[in-house]
């Protein structure tokens, strides 16, 4: 919107910036940065249970603020669809597919004990065997499924 930052920060700015967040979380508060865990805390709250790690929910609250900040300072929020997924599926199919993709991520992240941030960033940086295995698995599966869908849809996806 304000175009203070470019449409896409160079990877050598965004990557180390995200990496610094992981290090600061470990070094300042002894905590493993991970987004799914924050959503899980909010889910506990919504189910009437006490939050076991409220700081995770606060971290995710910050994440929302930072995302809005980047959108305002950068390209802004023009309402748009779901990329090539919108081209392939009409709105009646798109919503359930998006929902199921989310269900798979939430279910899988809780089962695996982390997602792209908790395992992929924080766990890999701590050289945790579990996180290295998880990251190798979900990236291989995601590349495989993406290539498969690309072929199956005749290149639309």
């Amino acid at each position, binding site marked *: 919107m304000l175009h203070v930052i470019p449409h896409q920060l160079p990877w050598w700015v965004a990557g180390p910036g995200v990496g610094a967040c992981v290090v600061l979380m470990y070094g300042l508060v002894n905590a493993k940065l991970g*987004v799914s865990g924050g*959503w899980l805390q909010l889910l506990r709250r919504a189910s009437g249970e006490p939050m076991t790690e409220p700081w995770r929910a606060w971290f995710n609250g910050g994440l929302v603020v930072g995302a809005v900040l980047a959108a305002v300072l950068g390209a802004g929020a023009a309402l748009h669809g779901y990329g090539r997924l919108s081209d392939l599926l009409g709105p009646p199919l798109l919503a359930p597919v998006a929902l199921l993709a989310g269900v798979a991520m939430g279910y899988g992240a809780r089962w695996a004990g982390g997602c792209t941030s908790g395992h992929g960033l924080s766990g890999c940086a701590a050289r945790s065997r579990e996180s290295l295995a998880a990251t190798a698995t979900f990236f291989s599966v995601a590349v495989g499924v993406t290539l498969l869908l690309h072929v199956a849809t005749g290149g639309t996806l």
Partner: protein
Amino acid sequence: MSRAGTAVCLVIGVAFGFFLTGSGLGDYHTIHDGLLLQDPYIYLMLASSVGVATLGVLALERRGRTVLEGPLALPRHPVRRGTILGSTVFGVGFAVGATCPGITVAMIATGNVYGAVVLVGIFAGLWLRGRHETGSR
């Protein structure tokens, strides 16, 4: 965690959300083209972030103490069956949605309203797994 620690988490969360969204990962094509092996951005970003974080963790290990919360305790776990099965299920959602639990916020912030649908799905998935875990106990 102390109040000060929680405030630190909030501030780091802002920075994290800023970099995730500023990187354009909230745009379907950034991750999708990466998973199609047509755009190296996500891999360069992942490698540079894990690289910086690994060096930082090594430095923290030498120091051994955290600023606010005592001796450094790193999360290191062995590989479980669920690690692989869960990550496989996660990978399918990651591929179809071309997003992940943090990036959905970047999607919504930059105007992809379907990001909200994905996020509702993530909550439902977290809940469902919790049900299955209590059920199998």
